[in-house]
C-alpha cells in the first residue's frame, strides 16, 4: 500500500532523513518512533507530497507521489503535527471546504461532513469559530479533515499531543478502529501508545532506520536479558552467601524497589544465559530463606528504545 524506497532529505550539510526504506501493508498500523528531531515529521511530509525528497521514491497505492501527485494525494488523509485549520472559519464551514478541496462529489459533501463530525464528536461544535476551540477540539477537527473522502491511507503526526487523558484513550481506540479499514502511519514519542495501537513499529534515529518489527518481536529479540528478579525475606549478606555456591551467576544487585515490609528485591544475572531460577530456589530453600517472587527480567519497548536511540544522550 505504501512503499518508501531509499528516501533521503538533505538540508545543506544536514541529512534529516537518510536512506529510509519500508513498506506498509493494507490495513496495517505502523508506528513511527523516534526522539525529537529524528526525522519523523520530515518523512511524513515527504510521504504526503508536501515536501519533495532529495532522493528516493514514495509510492501510495501504486501511484508515485512525485510523478502522479494528484492521484497519490487523493488516497491520503494527512493530519500534520499542528492541525491545518483556518482560525477564522467555523467547524462545519471548514469541513465543507475540505470536502470541496478533496473533490468529494457534490451530492455526497453534506453527508460526508456529517459523517466525520459524528465520528470525531465535534457536531455540537459545528458553528463555533475554530479559533475559539481548545487544543483537543482543534486536533479532532484536524483529524476529521484527514478522514474526509474516506482515504485509504491515513498519515497522523503525533495525533494525541495536547489531548487530556480521557481524549487520549478515546483517540487511541478510534485509531485502532480506523486501522481496520485504513492503512495508517502514526508517529509518536509515547512508547506505550505505539505499543498499544500499532501492528508494527519503525524506530528511527538521526534519519536512519534502526529497526522495523512488531512490538512483541522487538521486545523478544532485543529485550531478552539473562536476569532474574528475586524477592526474598533476607538481608543482603545472607542472600549473597546463599547464592554464592551457584557457579554460573555473574552478578547480583539489590534493586531499589518498593516491596512489602521486610522483603528485598534482587536482580541476579547468569553468566551463560542458562536457567538459574531452579538453582536459586534450591539455594534459598537450603539456607532457610523465604522466597516470595521470582521472574525473568524482560526489557520494555522503552528500554529498547532508549538503548537504541539514546546513546548520544539526546532522548526526550
Amino acid at each position, binding site marked *: 500500500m505504501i512503499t518508501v524506497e531509499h528516501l533521503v532529505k538533505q538540508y545543506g550539510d544536514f541529512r534529516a532523513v537518510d536512506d529510509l526504506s519500508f513498506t506498509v501493508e493494507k490495513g496495517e498500523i505502523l508506528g513511527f518512533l523516534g526522539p525529537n528531531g529524528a526525522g519523523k515529521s520530515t518523512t511524513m511530509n515527504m510521504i504526503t507530497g508536501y515536501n*519533495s525528497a532529495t532522493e528516493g521514491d514514495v509510492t501510495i497505492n501504486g501511484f508515485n507521489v512525485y510523478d502522479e501527485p494528484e492521484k497519490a494525494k487523493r488516497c491520503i488523509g494527512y493530519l500534520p503535527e499542528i492541525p491545518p*485549520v483556518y482560525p*477564522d472559519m467555523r467547524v462545519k464551514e471548514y469541513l465543507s*471546504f475540505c470536502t*470541496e478541496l*478533496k473533490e468529494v462529489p457534490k451530492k455526497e459533501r453534506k453527508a460526508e461532513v456529517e459523517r466525520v463530525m459524528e465520528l470525531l464528536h465535534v457536531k455540537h461544535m459545528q458553528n463555533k469559530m475554530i479559533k475559539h476551540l481548545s487544543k483537543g477540539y482543534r486536533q479532532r477537527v484536524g483529524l476529521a479533515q484527514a478522514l474526509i473522502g474516506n482515504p485509504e491511507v491515513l498519515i497522523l503526526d503525533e495525533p494525541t499531543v495536547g489531548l487530556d487523558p480521557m481524549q487520549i484513550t478515546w483517540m487511541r481506540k478510534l485509531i485502532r478502529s480506523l486501522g481496520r479499514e485504513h492503512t495508517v502511519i502514526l508517529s509518536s514519542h509515547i512508547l506505550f501508545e505505539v505499543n498499544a495501537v500499532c501492528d508494527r513499529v519503525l524506530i528511527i534515529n538521526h534519519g536512519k532506520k534502526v529497526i522495523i518489527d512488531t512490538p512483541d518481536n522487538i521486545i523478544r529479540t532485543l529485550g531478552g536479558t539473562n536476569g532474574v528478579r528475586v524477592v526474598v525475606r533476607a538481608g543482603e549478606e545472607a542472600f549473597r552467601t546463599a547464592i554464592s555456591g551457584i557457579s554460573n551467576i555473574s552478578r547480583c544487585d539489590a534493586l531499589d524497589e518498593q516491596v512489602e515490609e521486610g522483603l528485598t528485591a534482587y536482580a541476579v544475572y547468569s553468566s551463560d544465559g542458562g536457567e538459574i531460577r531452579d538453582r536459586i530456589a534450591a539455594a534459598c530453600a537450603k539456607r532457610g530463606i523465604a522466597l516470595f517472587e521470582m521472574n525473568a527480567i524482560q526489557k520494555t519497548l522503552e528500554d529498547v528504545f532508549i538503548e537504541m536511540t539514546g546513546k548520544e544522550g539526546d532522548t526526550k
Partner: protein
Amino acid sequence: MKAIYKRELKSYFTSFLGYLFIAFFLLFIGVFQYLYNLRLGYANFARAVNGTATFFLLLVPMVTMRILAEEKRQRTDQLIFTSPVSVERIVIGKYLAIVTVFAIAVAIVCVYPIILHNYGATNYKVAYTTIAAFFLLGCTYMAIGMFISALTESQVFAAVVTFIVILFTLMIDLLVQMLPTGNELALAILIILAVIIGVITYVMMKSKVVTGIFLVLSVGGLIVAFLVNRQSFDGSLARIFGWLSVQSRFSLFMYGIVDISSYIYFLSMIFLFVFLTVQAIKKRRWEA
C-alpha cells in the same frame, strides 16, 4: 481551484481586508474625481482614474503580502498542498480571489461616468477603455505582488519589496530620461545586467552549466550585436527600461488612444507573474 477561490474570497470579507481595500480605493478615486471632474471641471473621467493609479503603491501590498504567507503561518499550507489540487490551480484560485475583490471596486467605479454624463458630455469610450486599462494595471501589480509574497515568508518584507517595485515602475519614466544614450556605455551596462542576472540564476538554480550557457549567449550575443551594428545600441537603455514601464502604457488611454497592445502587454505580464509564482512555490517546496 473553485474551493480555494471561494474560501479565499470569503476570507477577504470576513476579515475586513476586502472591505478596507474597496473603501480606500473608492475614497482615493472619489477624491480625484471630485478634484478633476467636479472642482476643476474636466469632462474627462480618465484623469481621475489616472490620478488614482499612484495609490496602487499602498493598496496592492496590503492585499498581496498575506496571500501565501498567511497560509504558511497558520500551517494550512500543509492542507492545501497535500490535497489533490495542483499548485497551478491553487495559485490561480488565490489570484482570482484578489482580482474579484478589485473587480468589485472597479464595477462601482464604472457607474461614475454615467452619473457624470447627467451634468455634461462624457466621452464613454475614453472613460471605459481607461477603466479597463486601469483594471488590468491593478491586476498586473497584484500578480507582481503575489510573486514577491511567494518568494518570502515575511509579510513585512513582501509588502516593502512590493511597494518598492511598484514605486520603481511609477518612477521609471523619470529615470529613463536620466539614462546615458551613448552606445558604448549602453553595452557596458547591458553586460553588467547580464552578469547580475547570471549570478541570480546561479544562486537560484545552483547549476554552473545553465549559468555558463546563459552568460556565454547573453554577453557574447551583446558583443557580437555591438560589433555588427553599433548604432542600434544608441538609446537602447531608454528603450529597454521604457518597455518595463507599466505606468506609461496606461497613461496613453487618458488621451483617447485605445492601445490594444497595452492590453496585451498587461495580460502577458499577469500571465508571466502568475507563472513565476507557481515556479517559486514549487521551488521553495523542493528546498523546504
